[in-house]
């Protein structure tokens, strides 16, 4: 399964890779240059060492020459033999490397031979004219013989020098080259490097390990020696020793002698600075990679942290948490992104909240409209019902009115007739008993007739009230100050109530809104409504007898631009639920028979609704309070009297 790396890991890897690549490239280049530099430096050092070693070996021979030179003076040929011997003794004394010294005269005859090991020979006269050593001095002043190994072990070289003057002789010295060892062993090349000398054939002349020299070791097979003998240009090369060790080898040729001085140093030692540089570069590389790793991780975390926060925020937002906000610290692109994200989330949240609010508003408006519609419908039904009832009542009254007029008129006429009867009886002079009896009968008739008249008038009053239902705005319609009308009517009602029951007392509170002003009304009709409502209120508070009860009636007006509301509230007995729906119906009353006609509220409803286009509403809590509210429009709507 292929694993997908996280952004942080990829970033860290990318950073690491980049840094590592830079370090590797840089390290490799610097290592390459350091290698070149150190190798060249080592080569230079080796070359210098080789030159110095060649110089020292050359110096060794030069010193010998100088010492032998003592015996090559022009006048030396004329000094006595004993003096010559003495000079040779001194030469051997001064130059330990010279094992044997010979003096050969100009004819090649041996005149003197001194040796450290052999007895001295004086004037032997041995013919050495054909000897290579003597012949060598005929060609050049100084002649170096080939290196020979005495007894197959010790390296020797003959050094012959021609004397000065005419027909000169020569001094021949046999030099034990073992003594170069001190020179060679004294040459230090680094910690474990060394120098050695070979002759032109590659045979070892001097080496710190004397045993190699004494075994007449031939090194011409070694590539560096072979190259040096061949005279190749490359003076420094990596090579192997006889024991197979890898060395950096340099050589220098000693002038005149033709010997080759080699300086060799173990490659590992010579190139130690190179290795040091390599180790250092590797260490730095490692350190760099570790640092890059750490930096990569830190950087990646810092970089991906906000991205992850963004991701988490987006997820939560996706899950519906609109309050989710991303904490932003950086002012970079990611910070800006987070900021935009937060703004987006805010806008979505705002939009959603606005939407919800709108839905709530619409719902409320709808339910309000529905409520209003229902109320209107209810009112319409009520109004229709009450209107039909009013018409019925008016119709009944109209039918009753004429017979009642007959009753009333004839009862009045009967009273007049009775008076005429009494007058007639006075004139007739009737027996007084009869007359008393007749008088008593007449009084009884008169009483009866008075009762008929009184009740007739009451019936007439009821009929008139009933007829009021059918009346369309009796009296004039004009602009009336509602508050003033209210105060006037209240006073009338209050006095009426006091008249009816003298001990009656009630607290009346008035909260009249001065902004109510005038309304276009039928004042008489509307006063009737108010009187009715005040009467009912006073009656309600009288009916309540709870201990510590304080009767209280509130009269208030409230103006709005479109309407005026009149509220009359009492803290009386309230209206039971069963009664409430019937209170605006004609002839419905809770008062005892004879005290109320049951037409007051019915008429009031008619007046407010039918005549003034307003509304009348009741709110109540049984046993606590009742509140009637009349709402009158400022512009009376066209009267709608749907039959």
């Amino acid at each position, binding site marked *: 399964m292929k694993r997908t790396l996280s952004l942080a890991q990829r970033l860290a890897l990318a950073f690491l890779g980049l840094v590592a690549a830079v370090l590797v490239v840089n390290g490799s280049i610097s290592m390459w240059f350091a290698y070149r530099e150190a190798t060249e430096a080592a080569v230079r050092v080796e070359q210098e060492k080789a030159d110095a070693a060649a110089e020292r070996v050359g110096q060794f021979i030069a010193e010998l020459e100088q010492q032998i030179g003592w015996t090559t003076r022009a006048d030396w040929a004329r000094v006595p033999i004993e003096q010559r011997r*003495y000079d040779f003794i001194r030469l*051997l*004394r001064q130059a330990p490397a010279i094992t044997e010294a010979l003096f050969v005269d100009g004819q090649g005859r041996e005149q003197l031979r001194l040796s*450290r090991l052999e007895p001295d020979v004086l004037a032997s006269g041995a013919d050495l004219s054909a000897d290579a050593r003597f012949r060598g001095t005929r060609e050049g002043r100084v002649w170096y013989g080939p290196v020979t190994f005495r*007894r197959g072990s*010790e390296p020797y070289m003959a050094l012959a020098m021609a004397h000065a003057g005419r027909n000169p002789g020569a001094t021949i010295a046999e030099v034990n080259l*073992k003594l170069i060892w001190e020179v060679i062993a004294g040459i230090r090349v680094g910690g474990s490097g060394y120098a050695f000398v070979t002759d032109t054939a590659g045979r070892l002349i001097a080496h710190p390990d004397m045993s190699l020299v004494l075994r007449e070791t031939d090194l011409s097979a070694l590539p560096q020696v072979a190259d040096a003998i061949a005279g190749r240009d490359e003076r420094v090369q990596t090579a192997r020793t006889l024991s197979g060790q890898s060395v950096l080898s340099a050589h220098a040729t000693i002038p005149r002698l033709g010997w080759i001085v080699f300086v060799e140093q173990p490659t590992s030692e010579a190139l130690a600075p190179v290795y040091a540089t390599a180790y250092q570069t590797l260490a730095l590389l490692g350190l760099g990679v570790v640092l890059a790793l750490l930096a990569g991780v830190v950087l990646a975390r810092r970089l991906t942290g906000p991205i992850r926060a963004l991701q988490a925020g987006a997820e939560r937002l996706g899950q519906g948490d609109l309050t989710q906000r991303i904490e932003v610290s950086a002012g970079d692109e990611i910070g800006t992104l987070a900021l935009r994200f937060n703004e987006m989330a805010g806008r979505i949240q705002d939009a959603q909240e606005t939407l919800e609010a709108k839905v709530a508003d619409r719902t409320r408006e709808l339910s309000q409209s529905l409520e209003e519609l229902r109320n209107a419908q209810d009112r319409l039904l009520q109004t229709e019902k009450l209107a039909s009832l009013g018409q019925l009542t008016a119709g009944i009254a109209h039918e009753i009115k004429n017979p009642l007029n007959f009753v009333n008129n004839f009862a009045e006429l009967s009273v007049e007739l009775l008076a005429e009867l009494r007058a007639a009886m006075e004139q007739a002079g009737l027996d007084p008993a009869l007359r008393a009896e007749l008088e008593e009968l007449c009084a009884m008739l008169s009483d009866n007739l008075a009762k008929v008249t009184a009740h007739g008038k009451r019936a007439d009053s009821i009929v008139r009230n009933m007829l009021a239902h059918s009346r369309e705005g009796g009296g004039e319609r004009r602009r009336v100050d509602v508050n003033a009308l209210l105060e006037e009517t209240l006073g009338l009602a209050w006095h009426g109530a006091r008249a009816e029951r003298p001990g009656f007392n009630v607290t009346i509170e008035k909260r009249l809104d001065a902004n109510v002003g005038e309304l276009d009304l039928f004042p008489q009709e509307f006063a009737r409504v108010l009187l009715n409502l005040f009467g009912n209120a006073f009656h309600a508070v009288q009916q309540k007898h709870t201990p510590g009860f304080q009767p209280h009636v509130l009269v208030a007006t409230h103006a709005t631009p479109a309407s005026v509301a009149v509220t009359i509230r009492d803290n009386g007995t309230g209206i039971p639920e069963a009664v409430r729906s019937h209170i605006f119906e004609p002839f419905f009353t809770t008062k005892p028979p004879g005290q109320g006609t049951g037409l007051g509220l019915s008429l009031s409803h008619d007046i407010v609704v039918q005549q003034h286009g307003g509304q009348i509403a009741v709110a109540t809590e049984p046993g606590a309070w009742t509140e009637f509210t009349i709402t009158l429009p400022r512009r009376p709507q066209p009267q709608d009297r749907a039959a």
Partner: protein
Amino acid sequence: MKRRVLLATPLLAAGPAVAQPNRPHARIGLLTAQRAASMEPFLPTLRAGLAAAGLVEGRNLTLETRFGDDDLSRVPALMEELVRLPVQVLLVQGAAVSVVVRARPPVPVVFVLSGNPVAAGIAQSLARPPVGFTGLTLLSAELNAKRLELLHDLRPGLRRVAVIANPDHPGETLERSQIFEMAERLGITISLYHTRSRAELDAAFAAMDADALCVFADGFVLQNREAIARFAIARRMPLISGWRAFAESGALITYGPRLAESYRRFAYFVDRILRGTPPEELPIERPSVFELVINQRTAAAIGVEIPLSLLARADLVIE
């Protein structure tokens, strides 16, 4: 660059150790047919040479010495004893060398020999010693003719020279032939006295009648050097030998290799062999530095005037 070195230092800290103060403990045997006194002048030089190679007695070196007390027949037994110890390297000196070479012990042998090892039949060549052996020659034998010449230079009228030699010494025959050849050339009569014990030496003294005395250097005469010197002074005989120790003990002249050098090489052989080089790969070395020592006190005591040609050669004049 300095920074690089600083950085590189800890990396190179585990590099090769420079000195080797903690080389393993070595046990070395030293065998001679003579008495302890024969080794007396050389042991300090040998110890110094070994110490220079990092071998210090008491710390990482045990030097087991065995002396035959002038009895060559005891050498094989002493050798066996050292081999059984065992020792890692066997150093053999003087007359004992031939015996040990014949016995071919199973340990590397480093010898020091006054005579010529090729002439003594010990080695085929100096460059290629026999397997298991290497060593030094002190060139005593080759130089005897030279010594006779020095005596002749000292006293040109010299006619009779007595020679004291140890016949057990390897190569003694060669030494003898060389000196006889030279004596014949110089017209000198040689009377040879073989001494391998104090008794023989005393007998030689008693019989001796010569103008000068030449002593073939070896362990036996070395241990008796003072007696010989006293005898020579008493007889007013110029005495010449090979090793400086004789001159320091009263001999008139010594001419021979500088033994301090030779014993340093001796220590070098021990070091190389302990480090694993087979002895046969180390060629037998001849001395390359020679010294002439003249004892002026003895010269005065016996009434001899040293000629300038001799004094000019002298490396050391004991006043």
